[in-house]
């Protein structure tokens, strides 16, 4: 069965520091992977996605993620965090069905940025 694990429930970083959020997936076929961000009181916004090709994916707001099949991981990174990056981050794997594309989300990682 497909699943997504985000091992870190909460991470705190200083503004300007680098960031890496971990995501591990379990999926039988080639995974289609996504990272979403949820700001407080807001909906989910797509940061980036991976379907195939280059394993290093660039997204919005300076984020990138690297797909590593051998490690079943799709970690999200940012070289320098801004205070506005404080939010909840969700990794997801897409599972195709006969009538739709169902997403399975991880439990999220809450990011706090300290000045």
């Amino acid at each position, binding site marked *: 069965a497909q699943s997504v694990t985000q091992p870190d429930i909460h991470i705190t970083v200083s503004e300007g520091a680098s960031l890496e959020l971990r995501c591990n997936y379990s999926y039988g076929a080639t995974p*289609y992977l*996504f990272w*979403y961000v949820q700001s407080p009181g*807001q*909906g*989910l*916004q*797509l940061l980036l*996605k991976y*379907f195939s090709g280059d394993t290093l994916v660039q997204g919005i707001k300076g984020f990138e993620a690297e797909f590593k099949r051998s490690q079943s991981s799709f970690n999200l990174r940012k070289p320098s965090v801004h205070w506005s990056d404080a939010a*909840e981050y*969700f990794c*997801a794997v*897409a599972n*195709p*069905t*006969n*009538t*739709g*594309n*169902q*997403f*399975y*989300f991880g*439990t*999220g990682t*809450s990011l706090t940025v300290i000045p």
Partner: protein
Amino acid sequence: DTAVSQTPKYLVTQMGNDKSIKCEQNLGHDTMYWYKQDSKKFLKIMFSYNNKELIINETVPNRFSPKSPDKAHLNLHINSLELGDSAVYFCASSHDRGRQETQYFGPGTRLLVL
């Protein structure tokens, strides 16, 4: 323009009541979804709806029923609300049902059942 919108944003109601949450997308997408986000931030799909074909997550109680008057709308009706229904409900849409389709999410409806 808001791509996926939901109303209301907040909903506080008594146990046993019936309520509806509306979702509209102006993206011209063919597939729409409802997700439930619990207090631990875990997002779980409830329904997906494509061209009048509904896929129901088997763990969803039959008190929950999606209704789609047209392709741009997928409303969620909940009967006999229970305390455990308190959560944030997200609507989403995608162009098609392929694996490469990105899902676009609404802002969520925060439901509190007292």
